[in-house]
């Protein structure tokens, strides 16, 4: 092991190497977890997700590498899952009865790590200081043997649903009742393997297998309507004998995400899918709904231009807390 990689890191909200940036008041994640009032909890998760966008932008800027578009797209979904949707124990990451989430769109790694850190799996400072660097636990794409809380190594697209199906079938064989979630994006749905798994899941019908689609309609090279059209997505899934949540679900509105999970909890037909309408790069106007910021470098100028927008939204969300 090298010397503590965090020692040189000053938790400065991403201002390293540049001019000091205005800070924000981080919400106490524990307070989000224990909030008893549903409306207030959703408001806090909404805030936490936006806060995570700023953390991710700062990390990508500080380390000069990583994917913004797909990470920003999944902020609310990932935050909701770890702070409300899933039963997990950060102090005991391998607890056998934990709910599983396979983040099949592994390029959202910066957002996943940021939210796992806020949930208590490891220090947030470690994400910012070591993301994508040598000897780090924070690999470019998620690695289950390096990062606590990561259930499956992903990055190459199309694996997630097959893996989650395996987890759900293992639950059946072992008479366990955990949930198996998989988060996919447009790119995963281009892969033939995903459709093999869609067929197989509808054959075996394991309980509590849930496909969450971060349907932001943009992939690396451009709009999915141009690169590989996926519409009509819910109809396709229904034709493959999946139980699909009523649409549309706004994947950036935590109240709507919560409502979609309320729907999920009373289902008896498996497998189930929820299609979330999302925006790639959500949160920064000039980075939204474009392939340009799939994985482009967040340089000083971009960072300085994007961050105030995220902060302004955060301020509005703070007023609603």
């Amino acid at each position, binding site marked *: 092991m090298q010397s503590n990689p965090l020692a040189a890191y000053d938790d400065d909200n991403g201002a390293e190497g540049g001019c000091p940036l205005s800070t924000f008041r981080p919400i106490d994640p524990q307070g989000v977890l224990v909030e008893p009032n549903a409306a207030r909890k959703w408001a806090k998760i909404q805030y936490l997700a936006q806060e995570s966008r700023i953390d991710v932008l700062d990390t990508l800027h500080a380390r000069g590498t990583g994917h913004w578009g797909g990470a920003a797209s999944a902020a609310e979904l990932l935050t909701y899952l770890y702070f409300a949707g899933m039963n997990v124990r950060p102090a005991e990451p391998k607890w056998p009865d934990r709910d599983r989430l396979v983040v099949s769109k592994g390029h959202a790694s910066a957002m996943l790590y940021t939210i796992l850190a806020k949930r208590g799996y490891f220090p947030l400072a470690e994400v910012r200081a070591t993301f994508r660097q040598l000897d780090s636990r924070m690999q470019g794409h998620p690695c*289950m*043997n390096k990062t606590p809380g990561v259930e499956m190594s992903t990055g190459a697209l199309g*694996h997630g649903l097959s893996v989650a199906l395996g*987890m759900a*079938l293992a639950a059946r064989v072992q008479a366990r009742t955990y949930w198996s979630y998989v988060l996919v994006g447009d790119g995963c749905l281009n892969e033939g393997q995903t459709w093999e*798994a869609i067929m*197989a899941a509808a054959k075996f019908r394991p309980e509590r297998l849930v496909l969450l689609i971060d349907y932001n309609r943009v992939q690396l090279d451009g709009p999915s309507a141009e690169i590989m059209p996926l519409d009509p997505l819910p109809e396709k899934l229904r034709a493959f004998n999946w139980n699909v949540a009523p649409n549309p679900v706004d994947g950036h509105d935590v109240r709507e995400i919560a409502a979609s999970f309320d729907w999920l909890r009373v289902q008896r037909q498996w497998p189930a899918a929820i299609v979330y309408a999302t925006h790639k790069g959500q949160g920064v106007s000039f980075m939204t709904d474009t392939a340009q910021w799939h994985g482009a470098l967040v340089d000083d100028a971009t960072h300085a231009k994007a961050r105030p927008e995220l902060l302004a939204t955060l301020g509005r969300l703070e007023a609603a807390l």
Partner: protein
Amino acid sequence: MNRTVPTTAMTSGRDAFGQALLDLAETHPEMVVLDADVASSTKTLAFGKRHPERFFNVGVAEANMADIAGGMATCGLRPVVSTFALFLVLKAAEQIRNVTCYNNLPVIFAGGYGGLSDSYDGASHQSVEDLAIMRSLPNMAVVVLGDAIEVGAALAEALRRNGPTYLRLGRNPSPILFAHEPPLQIGRIRKLRDGGDLTLAVCGMPTVMAIEAAAELAHRGIAVDLLEVSTLKPLDDDALVASAAKTGRVLTVEEHSVIGGLGGAVAECLARRQPVTMDFVGVEDRFSESGDYLSLLAKYGISSAAIVEKSLRLCAAKR
């Protein structure tokens, strides 16, 4: 210790595999079996009928099958993934690499119909690249079974390993060679004959041919050190190096391309530790065709006669 080929029992690798799954099912409740619409061919069907809750026929979808197994393995199950070797290894190569091997998951991949053993189906079904690919994947153990007895031992041992294992099986009946030997150990070479003139390193069904060739060579005054190298990775380096140091000549014999299989593994090891004169019996860099199994093997360079011929040439050359 000199081995001869028994003329009695003939059993196929696939029949032995199907029986081994049944034999191990009770003592390994965590074992599950997946197949891709060839369960009646690979002989996993009997397990599926006896243990339907632990058997998953995923249809003709090898990539999906490999990753379902990966997900199961993260939850404590011990999946055995079965289909034809060619389709398993090449159609699911990226899944085996990125899910099973990258994460070092305990999944057993049973590649049936290995080598040219699906002889009549032709080049589209014959697997002579699988060992090269599987051997190049970190964490993967690669085991080629030489007879039916070895199949059960290898499966039992693979279930005890904490990482991925590739077991390569043949389709057709072949002689029982190891009924009265200590069971196969993954990672250990078996010495079948002791000699000082030439090392024959063999895996899989051609072990029979190598035993015959060694006897023929003995008549011609050449003493063969005959090694059955069932595990290509991790290779039993020390046993191999000791033999090569003694004989100074090594001929590898396998039902695989001469690129990247047993020959590659042996050459990589000896180039570093004990460089010697070498040659390779296997399929040259070309596609095969349909035909009777043994005739096909012979046409593509795998026979006792070919082993004898290459052995004589090696022994005629300077060490």
